[in-house]
């Protein structure tokens, strides 16, 4: 009913809800969350255990197939899938505490570590705390551009951003390194907001993790294949690369397609629960696709539901999205979703557009409005 209250007059995709509407909106989402929490049980446990098992089978198959040189592409495919499952559907979600209720130390957010350079312990701080708390608040959420890229009009343009597309390409190829070094907040050190010595406590964990990952993928497993050492090494590197590219793309489609809103720090002062949900919704975007695609994306294809309910098991997101969309329709709120190709194109063009200074005079607010409607 209130949906008719005025998409037309919107200048940006931020529909303005009254405080009262925001409160009810928050209550509806809270109710959804409570319902799923009360329903968690055997099926969720069986699901994640099954994914864990499949991941292991893929890893073992991948590692074993390196003994058969003609099967090299298959080996790389299996190992890539194993790493993707580990990082996305298992690692990311387990470390969000989605399965803590199971009481299984192997699936517990405090204990899990994933198959990538970044120590889970450090990622949990920058991701679960900084990014999920301050989602898309400029100057607070360090995931906006990861301290390297310009991803928003409100980030002032500087000449170095001419390299935006190149930086993005490099970040994609070396994504696991980007994630690992993210916590050192180099951009804040350059800006004088952080001291080098603040990073000291992070080094031992970081070095240990990088050393262990390197020994495993680039020394031990290749060595175990004897004369095939170089092939196996190349295969492991390729699998890590494939995972990097995949994870980067899924993650960038989650927050940077056109129409996704950013927020100023003032807008979020003394934020209510309702506004928090509102910000999470407008700051995220989904990708449509089949079941396997959702699993391989760690259900981050449901980035909106993930940001609304970060600690609910991700396998619940597809069902939740139906209800979230229904709620959004009633409140006249944008629900940003689209095919992978559409979201990717949108992100890529934004990366290129942001490389150049703004052309405010010519376009005014037009592109934003278009984006909002297109979404």
């Amino acid at each position, binding site marked *: 009913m209130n949906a008719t209250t005025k998409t037309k007059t919107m200048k940006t995709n931020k529909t303005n809800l009254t405080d009262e509407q925001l409160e009810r909106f928050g209550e509806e989402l809270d109710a959804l969350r409570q319902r799923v929490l009360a329903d968690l049980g055997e099926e969720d*446990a069986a699901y994640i255990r099954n994914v864990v098992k499949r991941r292991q089978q893929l890893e073992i198959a991948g590692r074993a197939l390196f003994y058969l040189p003609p099967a090299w592409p298959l080996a790389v495919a299996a190992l890539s899938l194993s790493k993707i499952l580990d990082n996305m559907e298992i690692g990311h979600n387990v470390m969000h505490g989605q399965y803590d209720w199971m009481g299984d130390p*192997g699936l517990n957010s405090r204990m899990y570590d994933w198959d990538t350079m970044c120590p889970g312990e450090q990622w949990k701080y920058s991701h679960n705390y900084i990014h999920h708390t301050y989602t898309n608040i400029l100057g607070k959420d360090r995931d906006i551009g990861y301290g390297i890229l310009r991803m928003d009009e409100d980030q002032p343009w500087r000449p170095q951003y001419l390299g935006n597309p190149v930086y993005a390409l490099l970040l994609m190829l070396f994504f696991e390194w980007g994630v690992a070094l993210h916590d050192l907040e180099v951009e804040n050190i350059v800006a004088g907001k952080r001291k080098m010595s603040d990073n000291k406590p992070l080094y031992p964990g970081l070095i240990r993790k990088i050393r*262990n990952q390197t*020994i*495993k993928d680039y020394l*031990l497993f290749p060595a175990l294949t004897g004369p095939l050492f170089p092939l196996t090494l190349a295969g492991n590197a390729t699998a890590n690369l494939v995972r990097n590219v995949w994870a980067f793309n899924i993650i960038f489609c989650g927050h940077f397609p056109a129409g996704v809103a950013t927020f100023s720090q003032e807008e979020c002062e003394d934020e209510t629960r309702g506004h928090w949900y509102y910000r999470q919704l407008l700051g995220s975007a989904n990708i449509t696709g089949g079941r396997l695609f959702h699993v391989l994306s760690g259900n981050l294809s449901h980035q909106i539901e993930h940001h609304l309910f970060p600690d609910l098991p991700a396998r619940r997101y597809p069902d939740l999205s139906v209800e979230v969309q229904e709620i959004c329709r009633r409140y006249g709120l944008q629900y940003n979703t689209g095919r992978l190709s559409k979201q990717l194109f949108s992100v890529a063009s934004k990366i290129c557009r942001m490389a150049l200074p703004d052309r405010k005079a010519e376009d005014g607010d037009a592109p934003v409005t278009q984006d909002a409607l297109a979404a």
Partner: protein
Amino acid sequence: MGLDLPGTILRSRAVAALAFPQGIDRYLEQVNPMWAAHEVRARIVDIRREVDVPGHPPVATITLQPTSTWRGHRAGQHVQLGVEVDGARRTTRVFTISSPDSRQGDRFTVTMRANPGGVVSRFLVERAAPGTMVHLSQAQGDFVLPDRVPEHVLFISGGSGITPVMSMLRSLQRRTHRGQVTFLHYAQSPEHQIFAEELDEVRRSGHGIDVHLLHPEQGDPNLSPAYLERLVPGYRDVPTWACGPAPMIEAVRAAYDESPALRVEYFQPPRTSGTSAAGDVAFTKAGLEAPNTGAPLLEQAEALGLSPEFGCRMGICFSCTALKKAGTVKNVLTGEESSSAEEEIRVCVSAPVGDCVVEL
């Protein structure tokens, strides 16, 4: 004891490096749940009802076949036992091993009463079937017999507190202890007697083991210094192991008057050990505040309707650990006080002394 070659390899640094970061146990358990390099698990091989009085919670003995990682136990020790109720929520409680000393990989038993609202004990006694897997810690606890057993030992137990002393008694029999043993047990009625048959046999066979099964609710004498003195003259100097409900243990302690010959084991924190009620307790996550009752923080939180995570409720498993933001707490088991500014505390055994702020 023997050379455990597969175990040595599986626990090697090379295997750890290859299985990084998950760890080799994650892989082994997929192949066979009884395979482990570090963790301890067990398969239930038998569940036998010990006591089944209509209208009362049944007691059962569960026989467990542990993985080869089980390092064995000393009579009197306990183990943390975790079960997955409905295949999902692992819940862990502490139970004493009731069988005699075990060595690496040996089968052992636990004996428990199915508490009316109990999650783990009811599952194990009433619902689990042989074949079910459970998760274990290694054996823990220092309520044990010394290597050189004294000439005369006295065991005093009540209700399900019989388990550690039963394990000791069984071990002594196996070690063919030549000295004198006095075994004193309190139960509600003869029908409630755990291990009744075995104790009956022990009594009849003699071997210097003096068994007394008492049922005060049916007119038998209560535990008192006079009764103990009659049973075991000079009992205060006889090495004694006592385990049972808190009120019984309090009575035993009073009767022994600080004698170093007495060792006790509690299944629950002694009720008289809290602090005096003063100040207020604040639970920050829940946003609740209430006058301090002097009970352990876990109980105070539960009384306010919160349900913090817990396992043993006896300071053993650390599953109830929470951050204390301010205030002083007293450990109800040791009496130790701690007032560090911010510290992790076990709320099940920490009672506030005055104002206290906890992240719960």
